[in-house]
Structures are given as structure tokens and as C-alpha cells.
């Protein structure tokens, strides 16, 4: 899957599972940051990341290894899409 396709899936997850306004989701781009507290980010907190992780694992059929530090992968849509693409390829 290319990053654009994954981005669209992630937006669908944000709308369906994290109750984001579909219009707001439309404005999100690959470089948009995810964690709250970063300028221009969509403001996800730690609980949002857990919900998002569950949805990603179920949508893409991958497992994220919690014994590793995943922070860097969740920095922006771009890093997350790349991470998912790599995992999905290996799965």
C-alpha cells in the first residue's frame, strides 16, 4: 500500500473510532503531526493512541511490538504510514 492509501484509512479510523469531524479529517495531510502539545497537531493523547493502535492492528492485520519504543512512529501521519507499510509488507 502506498502512504496515500494508508492515510485515507487512518482518516477513516479517526472519524469512525475517535469521532473526528469528517471535514477536519479532510484537512489532514501526511506531514500533520499527531501528538497533542505539538504545533499544528491533531491533538491525540495517550488514550487516543491506544484506541488508534487497536484499530490499526485490526485494519492492517499487523501487530505492534510494545517492548519497543514506538514514539517516533506516531509522530506524524507520514511516519505512521511508513511504519504501517513496512509492518504490513512483513506480515
Amino acid at each position, binding site marked *: 500500500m502506498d502512504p496515500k492509501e494508508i492515510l485515507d484509512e487512518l482518516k477513516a479510523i479517526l472519524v*469512525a*473510532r475517535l469521532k473526528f469531524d469528517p471535514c477536519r479529517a479532510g484537512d489532514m495531510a501526511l506531514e500533520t503531526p499527531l501528538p497533542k502539545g505539538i504545533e499544528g497537531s491533531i491533538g491525540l493523547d495517550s*488514550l487516543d493512541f*491506544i*484506541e488508534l*493502535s*487497536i*484499530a490499526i*492492528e*485490526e485494519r492492517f492485520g499487523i*501487530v505492534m511490538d*510494545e*517492548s519497543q519504543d514506538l514514539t517516533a512512529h506516531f509522530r506524524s501521519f507520514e511516519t505512521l504510514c511508513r511504519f504501517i507499510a513496512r509492518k504490513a509488507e512483513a506480515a
Partner: protein
Amino acid sequence: MRPVAVTGLGVVSPFGTGVKAYWNGLSAGVCAIRPATLVDTEGFRCRIAAEVPDGIGGSPRRSRADRLALAAAREALEDAGLSRDERVEAALVVGAVGGGMLEAEAWYWERFRGRRPASRLAPGATLPFAHVEALGNALGLEGPRETLVTACSSGAASLALAADLIADGVVSAALAGGVDALTRVCFMGFNALKLLSAEPCRPFDRDRRGMSIGEGAAFVVLEDLERARARDVRIYAALAGHGMTTDAYHVTSPHPEGEGMVRAMKAALARGRIAPAAVGYANAHGTATPQNDRIEARAIREVFGAERLLISSTKSMIGHTMAAAGALEAVATVLTLVHEVVPPTAGLDTPDPDVAFDCVPRVAREAAVEYAISNSFGFGGQNVTLLFGRA
């Protein structure tokens, strides 16, 4: 009160995922009770359980119980064909006891041994009310949410409450059911109470030695009958009545005369305005403990009199699935009406002379039944009877 229809079924059982696998197993009289693998049974008298086979799906970040519930709930919703908007309005009622206890136990087990365990589980997922959160969010159910914890009758109580919500006009549809995964605390607790049989349980057998533990999940979509007809959807059965009573007698033993059981069955009949003679089949609580089976048979006799009623315990095949039991057995009862086949009591060789009924030993029986009941009795004397009628 508005009549209530069953329009969707979903099951994850020790026979695997899906209603089809469940009914195939039950109607063939297959016993799914095997050596336990999810809990360490080293040193126990009982070392068997009815576990759900691999392949339930779902993120490993969810508890096993959440994954069982999700698979069953999804099947029921798809079966009923509820639209997105209809789902948003629907009530969600879940009977649960163990929650994510299996994973919590593993964490404490590691911790006790001085290790620093990592938990993959989402926060709160260990508690019984976590299931409504997981199901509601994943499946888009945004109406009233309830979690019922009435021990082994939780799954049946959830259908009863959901039927009330529809009958009273609060909602026009509900997803209701029960779920429990196998846990150490359940297995060890029943083992300590000396209620577990070393061999697969044999309900209503003279030589029964106790129960077998199982796991699973079952959900049904209940719906206002008129609306179901208007939607032109398949109606499996009517949930014609239910009764809920409490013994207020003892923490684990049922009342010796089955007084609360009798009242539950009578209440279900009264609510449905159905004569006892119209009922042709009882899916018994039938745990295969010496106390339950004798007292339950006596209570059924007091309500239904004659011996013509067919009785069976599907626990003989899938064990006692705890909070899922009432819901799994409700689905079995509905399928009995649909297929005109009564599932057997597997492993029944020598009928108990104290049980004056045909308990359908070993082999399923063809029988066109108009009305059937499903009994579920929980510790503390928490009794639920569901009454289903042919669509």
C-alpha cells in the same frame, strides 16, 4: 408492551466461530470438552475445559473476552442487517463476569515471580464493563449501554433487560448477549468448591460428578416485532416472555425446593400469557452438579407437570460458559425452534431416577416445538428463564 423478535444471531463457541459451527456441533452431539490449555491445571483433579479454538481474530491489544465478544456481536449485527443509523439508536446489553481477567492474572503471575511484565491490554479492559466500551466503539452502537453481572445467569439476564427496553418503547432494537473467556480464578474457584468433574460433565446422569468449564460469546439482535416486519427481515423467533427472580437463600447452593427457579419459569409464562402445556422443550441450566440437576428437574416438574416436556443440557457439549452460558443457550433454544431439532444431552448414559423427564440422551431429536424455555441459574440464587416462541 410491544412484542419482541429475534432477528440476528452470533456465536463464538468451543466449536469455533459462527452460528453454523455451533449448531452443527450441538445437533451432532459432539462434546468439545478437552484438555485445558489456557490455564495451568497441574495438580488439579479436573484438567479439562471447553476452549474456543484459534482463529477468533482481533487485535492482541484486546482481551481474549473482548475478541470473543466482538466476533459474535459482529455476526449478529450483520445477520440482522441493521443499517448504520439503526445501530446508532440500538441498545447494547452485555452479561459479563470475568472481563479481561485472563490477561490480568498473567500480569500478576509474572509480577509475583519478581519480573516486570509488559501489558498489552488497553486500560480498563480487565473489568467486566469493558466489553460494552469495546463493542460500542467498534460497531457504532450509541444507544443505552448496560453491563449485567448476575454470575452464571448474566447472559440470559441481558436478553431479558434488552427485551424490557424494547417492550417499554425505550429503543426499537438491541444487541444483547454474554461473554466470558476461561480464567484461572474461575477454574481454580470451581475446583476448590469441588464442583468440577475430572471427565466431561454428564448432566442428568445418575453418575454425574460435577461440571465442566467452557468459554465463548453469543449475541442476539432483539427488535420490536412490528419494526422487524416492516424491515422485511428474517425473524428467527419471538422472545415471548422472561422471568427473573432471586432465591435470597445461599451464596452457592440453590434453594432446596427450587422455589426461585419455579417463580422464574412461572413469571416467564405469565408474561408471555402462555400455558405450560404449550411449551415443548426446556434448555436446562443443567450444570451436572448433584444439587442443580435434581432441584432443577423438580422445579420444572412443578411448573410443567407431565413428563412430555423434552429437556436437554447443551452444557454437556460446550461446558458451562459462565456469563456467556445464558446467551449461548438462548441461541441454542432459538435454533431448536427454527430447525425443529432438539439438541441432545451428550454423555448421558444412565438417567437419574430422580429426573422424571426425557433428557434426549446422546442423539438429537426431531421435534416441532411451538414454545421453548431456556433456564439460567447463577450463584446466589439469581434465576432467569427466557421463553421463546416460533416465528
